[in-house]
């Protein structure tokens, strides 16, 4: 790696996690939630997304390239740390550990998720309510998706907290504490959205 790229790489990693990946996650969760309104709503939302102009361009530059960068650099960050929860069991140290753990779980989940949905779609499978209902006919997949979705939402919510610190938005201990509560609420609300979408297919 070229010299003195670290600062820029880290800041890019932090930024991409929120814009565009975090925004895409929000859009995705909202679309999934349409499943709770019945198969027709979900299918029409999915077909709308399939038909948006410049779809491949947007997918590549808004989703896949940022995601690949975030994942590869994130693995590097996660394996650079030597976790020391045994000696320092502070709340933020737990969050530090869980952020890295949830990042790895999310990556494993996403590889499977992209394979079983987007890549299957590219191979000619119709992406609709029935496809997801088919996946969730397997109880193991329900558990896998629950872990994956909650892990993704945790990684996003706690990532928002560290985004705010990394860019110097929350400097004082008080603002950081309030941000902890805000991101906790984000985590709970988005988990509700994500989990209820999963059970809409069951």
């Amino acid at each position, binding site marked *: 790696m070229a010299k003195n790229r*670290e*600062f820029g790489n880290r*800041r890019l990693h932090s930024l991409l996690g929120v814009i565009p990946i975090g925004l895409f996650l929000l859009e995705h969760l909202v679309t999934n939630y349409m499943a709770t309104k019945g198969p027709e709503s979900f299918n029409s939302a999915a077909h709308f997304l399939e038909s948006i102009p410049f779809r491949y361009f947007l997918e590549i530059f808004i989703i896949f390239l940022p995601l690949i960068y975030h994942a590869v650099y994130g693995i590097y960050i996660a394996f*650079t*740390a030597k*976790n*020391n929860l*045994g000696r320092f069991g502070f709340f933020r140290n737990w969050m530090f550990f869980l952020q890295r753990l949830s990042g790895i779980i999310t990556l494993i989940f996403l590889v499977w998720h992209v394979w079983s949905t987007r890549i299957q779609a590219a191979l000619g499978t119709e992406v609709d309510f029935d496809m997801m209902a088919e996946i969730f006919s397997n109880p193991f997949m329900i558990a896998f998706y629950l872990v994956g979705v909650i892990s993704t939402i945790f990684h996003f919510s706690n990532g928002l907290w560290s985004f705010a*610190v990394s860019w110097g938005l929350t400097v004082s201990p008080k603002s950081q504490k309030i941000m902890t509560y805000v991101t906790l609420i984000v985590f709970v609300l988005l988990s509700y959205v994500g989990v209820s979408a999963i059970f809409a297919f069951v």
Partner: protein
Amino acid sequence: MVETKSETKTVRFIITRQDTPDSAPYDEEFELAYRPNMNVISALMEIRRNPVTVQGKHTTAIAWDMNCLEEVCGACSMVINGKPRQSCTALIDQLEQPVRLAPMRTFPVVRDLQVDRSRMFDSLKKVKAWIPIDGTYNLGPGPRMPEKKRQWAYELSKCMTCGVCLEACPNVNSNSDFMGPQPLSQVRLFNAHPTGAMNKAERLNTIMSDGGLANCGNSQNCVQSCPKGIPLTTSIAALNRDTTIQQFRNFFGSDEV
């Protein structure tokens, strides 16, 4: 405290020892007669007088660093019952037994409990943690510092380069060249000084290079562990803000220095 009981009371120590910087560490156990108001250093001195383990083996005296004995120099830091702290203020009455002593392994071990802390002094040189006032002629008095700001800065200046924050940080390790919280907070201190601020951009650009500020992963162990209560994570977040501005200035700004 019952005076008569102290005669028979003993204190047990399990001490991680290492003969040379490259040799394997090993544990030795010692038992000492309890004395009131003992601290870890007085116990180590006691062992030095008669270095015999509980098994009766005659061993070498334990090597450790110490200097001020009042928690202002930072030299006697070691890992005591799993927590990095100064051995001079580690009172035996407040410690769970057996008392486990180990060196701060984030630093190269010289011998036994003695570590080489020079990486922190190298970092201070790297970030220019001083105020340049030397010249070929009298530069005259510098700008005044508001009293309130001086009092605030005094808290940051309490850093004694003890190394506890580096030992507590999960991102300061052999996989990374992260300089750790200690020199970063000093950057904030010297950037806050009215004369030191003249070199602010230079210091910020230094901590924006490899091994610098961006390596912080916000575990915030440092601020919880600092024996001087320095607001290390506030310093880091404040520097994050300063470097955000600095990076835009570097990229979009003029060529003005």
